[in-house]
């Protein structure tokens, strides 16, 4: 009886349920993401401000990339955009590298069964904590701690210790970039660490035990077991961090005193935001904002594909190739054999 019921169930097609279950995602995604994306693309070919409805072709792109647009101040627009693009990459790279190194080191330490570390749970909780704090509040906190004059915490401490002049942590173009990188790392290293830790803990402990018995030291274990098996999560971390980096907004946008925003922290996301917030909602610089968005989209797509391409499962691909080669050879041999029969 049971087997009859089972075979009847097997013969029913459940495909329609699959479509039903994934439909809400696709409907909402298309309405709130895909259409706005297409719309942004369309806007990037249209004019700015009162010229909003006019089709201007590639004018916005040539303006922000080469300063050759028809609008007045094209050269300044280009300078601003290129600076924003440069800032974005500097700020992302400057926080990603220390962040991944620190997180990886901590993750390996915390998962090492041989190391006796008291209060491991406490450290994990504390290190993850900055990540749950609102970036806007963090920016406000650091601006209030690291203000430029002797009236702020850090400079007051330094000057009490004998320094002559306050350090311009907020307004200096170079130091403020360094501060944003530091704060970004401060915010994210705990999160990355826990993600990598859960990856390492997913690796079968018997592999480490076997390596131990074979006499591998901890750096050998790290490079030959942990790192290769961690690759999928590392790729995920890299990709998410890259997305986060390219859209970095809250910290650079808010890390300044009062209403005088400093250009040296302007990222592309800030540039886009400034442009579609110029003037009224109907008459903002949608053209420039759209063009900048599409450029960022293209950069994300290219970087993302490169990362995935470089991190493909090389063994699987090599095996597939080998199998195909073997099949071919077999076929060829069969043919040959067939031809040889007398």
């Amino acid at each position, binding site marked *: 009886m049971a087997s009859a019921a089972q075979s009847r*169930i097997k013969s029913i097609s459940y*495909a329609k*349920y*699959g479509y039903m*279950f994934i439909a*809400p995602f696709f409907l*909402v*995604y298309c309405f*709130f*993401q895909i*259409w*706005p*994306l*297409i*719309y*942004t693309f*369309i*806007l990037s070919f249209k004019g700015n401000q009162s010229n909003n409805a006019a089709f201007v072709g590639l004018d916005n792109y040539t303006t922000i990339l080469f300063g050759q647009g028809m609008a007045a101040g094209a050269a300044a627009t280009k300078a601003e955009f290129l600076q924003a693009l440069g800032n974005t990459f500097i700020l992302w790279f400057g926080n990603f590298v220390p962040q991944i190194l620190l997180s990886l080191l*901590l993750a390996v330490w915390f998962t090492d069964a041989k*190391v*006796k*570390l008291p209060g491991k749970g*406490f*450290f994990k*909780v*504390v*290190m*993850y904590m900055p990540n*749950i704090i*609102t*970036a*806007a*509040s963090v920016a*406000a*906190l650091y*601006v*209030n*701690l690291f203000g430029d004059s*002797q009236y702020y915490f850090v400079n*007051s401490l330094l000057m009490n210790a004998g320094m002559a002049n306050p350090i311009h942590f907020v307004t200096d173009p170079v130091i403020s970039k360094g501060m944003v990188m530091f704060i970004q790392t*401060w915010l994210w290293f705990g999160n990355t660490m*826990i993600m990598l*830790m*859960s990856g390492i*803990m*997913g690796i079968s402990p018997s592999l480490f035990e076997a390596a131990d018995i074979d006499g591998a030291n901890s750096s050998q274990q790290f490079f030959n077991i942990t790192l290769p098996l961690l690759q*999928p999560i590392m790729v*995920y971390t890299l*990709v998410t961090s890259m*997305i986060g980096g390219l859209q970095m907004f*809250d910290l650079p946008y*808010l890390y300044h005193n009062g209403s005088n925003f400093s250009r040296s922290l302007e990222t592309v996301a800030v540039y*886009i*935001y400034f442009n579609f917030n110029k003037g009224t*909602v109907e008459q903002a610089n949608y053209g420039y904002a759209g063009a900048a*968005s*599409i450029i*960022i*989209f293209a950069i*994300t797509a290219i970087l993302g594909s490169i990362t995935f391409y470089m991190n493909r499962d090389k063994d699987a691909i090599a095996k597939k190739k080998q199998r195909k080669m073997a099949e071919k050879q077999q076929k060829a041999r069969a043919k040959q054999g067939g031809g040889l029969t007398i």
Partner: protein
Amino acid sequence: MSMKQQYGAQKDNYHKQIMIKSTIILVVCILLTLICLVPIYILIVNATHTHTELAENPSQLFFGGALGENMKILTNDIAEDAGKALRRVARQYSSVFNIGRGYLNSLIIAGCTTLLTVFFSALTAYGLVVYDFKLKGPAYTFIIGVMMIPVQVSSAGFVRFMYSLNLINNFIPLIIPAIAAPAVIFFMHSSLKSTFPLSIVEAARIDGCSEFRTFMSVALPLMKPAMAVQAIFAFVQNWNNYYTQNMILKNDKMMTVPIMVSKVLQFDKDVNYGVNYLCIALSIVPIVVVYVALSKFIIAGVALGGVKE
């Protein structure tokens, strides 16, 4: 005898190495702990000092007694005969920073988005893992692909589209898009793939359970650990989402906590250091308290629900 001599020395050496390594790790961890905690501590300490105290000595290290005073300025609850300057300061701060309203708005947005994200991502991931259909592969590839598209990329079009739908100053553009969270689906998909026993679905079918009910009462309870982790991440992310909120919400009544903090940061004059710190502390401390209360569960949940390849 000779064996003990030979291996005893090696063993001692081995123990010494581990001791040294453990000590280095402990020192690094304590340093990082200080880097994480000291800014928060100073923040809370400074929120308890008056503007005058902070202007005289900005590097206060211990608690003061002016928390109530700062709170009164922030809520514009000051005596008529207090100086004109102080009344101006109080009006300025209380006009942008209404903590009760900010919490309510932030809670509504973060709560609703979390529920939608977790439920619909579980539904989508379940649909992709359990059923076989023609477009299954392309659908999954699509989700992985769009995971990489930053929000900012479509924000110009998003704002203009929401404007044309008359949804500026409305919570809908902040809540409904949460149904589609590719990254959460990716996580749920991989956790389902590695842990979910498909035979359980067939067993439910034989017992006459409908497909949707199988999902609701068989799959969802099994997915709880993964969902809990994703719920925490989703809540934090949406609570902290200053960018989209700032883009859509222009009305004072709809302001969320991050927007209020950013407004306080932009004052050019009549800045009161103590009240500044109090505003930031009010935005940070409750989250930290909730986090500490849930931390064991959060950290354990992260370990349970992380990607396992």
